[in-house]
């Protein structure tokens, strides 16, 4: 009994603070996911459906509408562009983050300045940065394009994140592994290919995941830099201004599913790498 000297203990053996914190946690989760869940639920209404509760019927109607009606906007085209843009941004983010991770394995003159320059653009407000990029492009007479200027604007957002994640991963990388490889006769390239990349692979996948999801739903920085053709977030935004049917919600549901599929694929890849490493044990 002496162990329970703190606070009032009720019949079930848990202190009242447990229920207080539990309630707080439930509220937290509701605040996080409640709004999204409302959208997902309302997207499954039938043809009578509106933009607010209560639910009217249950059907796939608005999903069908999304892919058949032209009046809802260029969903297919913008989705296409968003995915392609995200792939370009992801590849650049992964390559640059990996290389800067390698560069920062040891200290060098001015490394602090270089580091803050790399992550500084995180602080800049996205919309301002977007307007600035747009202005600059107009000034030098280049037309904004989603596959050129938007890539640059999005990289100012994904690269700092990628670099930070890579640094966290690199902090657990032991340089003795590289020295051991060199000692055993590996060339620099063999060391990167056979030792550094495989050890860092889960981290590299995580950087890619960050790059993709950050780019896929980036809005502020893309707004003034995408040019005449919209990316998906821009398309959804313009739809909220003129589409007044639950097909907007259906679009939200579909894009969320795509995001989850990509995250799932990445986590699956990491799990597979780890499983393949572990499964070598009973193989013999």
């Amino acid at each position, binding site marked *: 009994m002496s162990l329970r000297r703190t606070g009032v203990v009720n019949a079930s053996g848990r202190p009242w603070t447990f229920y207080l914190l539990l309630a707080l946690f439930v509220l937290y989760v509701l605040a996080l996911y409640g709004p999204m869940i409302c959208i997902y639920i309302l997207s499954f209404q039938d043809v009578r459906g509106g933009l607010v509760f209560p639910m009217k019927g249950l059907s796939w109607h608005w999903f069908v509408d999304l892919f058949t009606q032209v009046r809802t906007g260029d969903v297919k085209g913008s989705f296409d562009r968003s995915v392609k843009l995200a792939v370009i941004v992801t590849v650049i983010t992964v390559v640059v983050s990996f290389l800067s991770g390698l560069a920062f394995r040891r200290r060098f003159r001015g490394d602090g300045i270089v580091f803050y320059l790399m992550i500084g653009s995180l602080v800049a407000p996205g919309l301002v940065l977007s307007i600035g990029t747009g202005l600059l492009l107009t000034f030098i007479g280049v037309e904004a394009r989603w596959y050129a200027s938007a890539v640059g604007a999005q990289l100012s957002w994904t690269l700092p994140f990628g670099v930070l994640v890579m640094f966290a991963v690199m902090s657990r990388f*032991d340089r*003795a*592994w590289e020295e051991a490889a060199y*000692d*055993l006769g590996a060339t620099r390239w*063999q060391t990167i290919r*056979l030792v550094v990349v495989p050890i860092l692979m889960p981290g590299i996948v995580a950087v890619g995941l960050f790059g993709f999801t950050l780019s896929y739903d980036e809005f502020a920085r893309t707004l003034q830099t995408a040019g005449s053709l919209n990316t998906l977030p821009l398309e959804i935004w313009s739809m909220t201004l003129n589409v007044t049917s639950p097909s907007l919600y259906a679009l939200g549901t579909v894009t969320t599913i795509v995001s989850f599929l990509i995250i799932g694929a990445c986590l699956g890849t990491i799990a597979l790498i780890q499983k393949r490493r572990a499964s070598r044990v009973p193989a*013999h």
Partner: protein
Amino acid sequence: MGAQVMGAQGHIELAGVCKSFDGFNNVVDGVNLKIPDGAYCCLLGPSGCGKTTILRMIAGHEDPTAGEILIGGENVVGLPPVARRTAMMFQSYALFPHLSVRDNIAFALRVRGLSKAERYAAADAMMRKVRLSELADRLPAQLSGGQQQRVALARAAITEPRVLLLDEPLSALDEHLRVQMRQELRQMQRELGITFVHVTHTQLEAIALADLVVVMEKGKIRQHGPARDVYASPQDRYVAEFLGGQNILDGRVQTVNGHHAIVAATTGRDIKVPLTPGVRVDAGDPIAVAVRRDDIELMRPDAVAPEGVVSLASRIRAIEYQGYFVKVMLEADSEEEFVVYVSERKFYRNPFEVGDAVLATWPVDVARLLA
């Protein structure tokens, strides 16, 4: 390369080797050392004394700022480890965490372009040799410390190096395993018949293993030689203190006569000490005298010390039972502690108590003047 002297391939010679990382502090300061082929050499010293830097320079992971490093008679400065035919075992082993034991051991053969079948055959043979066969498919994280050490050894040995360099190989292990793996290292060295250079800060490890002990301080070699010479005949105070087992008495030389010096110890009594060849002393010099703790005999104060024996009167401050011997600590005026190791049986024939007045006695010739 072709004209190598067979049988002396693993002979290492350091000539005037210096290393500075910042341009003005020498971490390694003019080291000259010859390590014979097939020797087990321990570089011993506290952290920061430059021992690991020397090891890394022999291995080819650092280049000396000045001086030459010869292996098998050929200057290897600037050559990569593979061309030197050295292999290094890293402090925490640095096993590749994503590769199985077999792939770790076969790594050196893989980067040389051997086929999978060839390198696995060689790795399997090596694993049989070091009793790792049943662990072939494990990952390093699934191994105990001792097993990891064996993998690291096997991975280094598969390249058939002429010199194996070990950086604090036992520091990652617990006390019990350390003694066991120490023996395995020594046995492995005999089987391979190659030169081992082993860096450690533990004097027990060094004297237990090495043919050649090199005691270092601040980038310089203080003394080197067979383990027994370094332990029993330390040349200076630093070596005596670092290897332990000695009492060090400070004093001033009173008179020097042919073979002996009379030293006035700060403890009050005069001590007769044999002169060490090579150590020049003159009357009035401050000097330190070392006496092995197990060379001292304790007597009752009323006992008469025989001829040729030095005696110091003191009082027992503390007694520690150590099993096969008893550690008796005496009161001393100086800061240095004065300790006597008495064999257990002998002590309990006529045991002393804390606070007893005693005479600490030793034959004149066992004391040593320190430089």
